[in-house]
């Protein structure tokens, strides 16, 4: 019997988790910077749309982003911790009263737009603050680890 299976699984992917993610809520309009690899070349493409669903947690966290391209609805599911997602920016906070905005699929024209978010903005601010703190701590920890690694490497080189 392995007692701490969940801990082991989380530990394995711990260094793959991103520490610069914003607080994502349903209804937000976001810019997702996609890293697109074509053979040798790599470029960044920005995909803007509305977050209509979130799923998973930790390394498995993903968001579904919907937008309209050439009059055709497009939805892409992004694993947010994937290295192929270079960056996620919040453009605008939309007001949503439910966890999944699948009803937007049937909406046409101006009805598609969500109202700007007003409810719970204070709570959101607090969340953002804590997230920023967590991110900063994680980044500092990562930097410290990198620094010691460099120092050790330097020592070895000196020897």
């Amino acid at each position: 019997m392995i007692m701490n299976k969940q801990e082991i699984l989380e530990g394995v992917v711990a260094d793959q988790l991103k520490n610069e993610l914003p607080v994502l809520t349903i209804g937000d309009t976001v810019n997702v910077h996609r890293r697109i690899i074509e053979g040798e070349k790599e470029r960044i493409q920005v995909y803007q749309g509305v977050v209509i669903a979130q799923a998973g947690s930790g390394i498995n966290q993903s968001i579904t982003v919907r937008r309209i391209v050439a009059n055709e609805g497009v939805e892409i599911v992004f694993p947010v911790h994937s290295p192929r997602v270079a960056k996620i920016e919040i453009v605008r906070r939309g007001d949503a009263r439910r966890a999944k905005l699948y009803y937007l699929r049937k909406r046409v024209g101006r009805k598609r737009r969500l109202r700007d978010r007003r409810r719970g903005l204070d709570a959101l601010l607090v969340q953002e603050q804590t997230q920023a703190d967590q991110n900063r701590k994680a980044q500092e920890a990562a930097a410290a680890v990198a620094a010691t690694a460099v120092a050790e490497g330097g020592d070895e080189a000196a020897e």
Partner: protein
Amino acid sequence: MPQVAAILGRKVGMTRFFLSEDGKNVPVTVIQAGPCYVTEVKDADKHEYSAIQLAFEDIDPKRSTMQMIGHDAKAGLSPKRFHREVRLDAGDEAEYEIGQAITVETFEGVMYVDVVGTSKGKGFQGVMKRHNFKGQLASHGVERKHRSAGSIGGGGINLGTGPKPKKGKRMAGHMGNATVTSRNLDVVKIIPEQNLLLIKGTVPGPNDGMVLIRTSKRLGKSKQLKVSTAKKG
């Protein structure tokens, strides 16, 4: 280095892993493997084949038997729970000695592995689930027979005629809880500090189940090519 590396472990569970080179999203099974100890070395002279016996995981002596405790003590070990034999190429057994520890580091440089485990038991199952039969039609006069197999024939034993169904005719019965080998799985990462192996895809059995991991025995052509080019550097 011997041709065959082998180790025993327990399945921890599955997660996902992003490859560092291109960011590809890979499903991985995490296995906590080893350290294992060699309890017996079999050579061609005495046993007519080459093999080593591996022992894994400490056990309360009360849960073991005197015979097994003695067997482990001969190798200078505390009582172990699992003992499995691994066949080696002739002559390779000379590289092992009794009591030697084997850790996941032996898999450094190994690209593909076979994983042997015991599949989850499914109980008594019908032919549709057990053998992927199609069953019968939903209507057109079919009554109470929608998930049955069709005729099982009266073909005679392995001949065209006779009074009995053919031997080995696939029917309903017990499914799962059998030894299954998943072959040629990619080794994604090795974490020696925690005795962990990350292997691409699924492996047989439940979480916590014991599995045997060894270098692949039957590689396909494309994977053989990859291994040989990797060796050349």
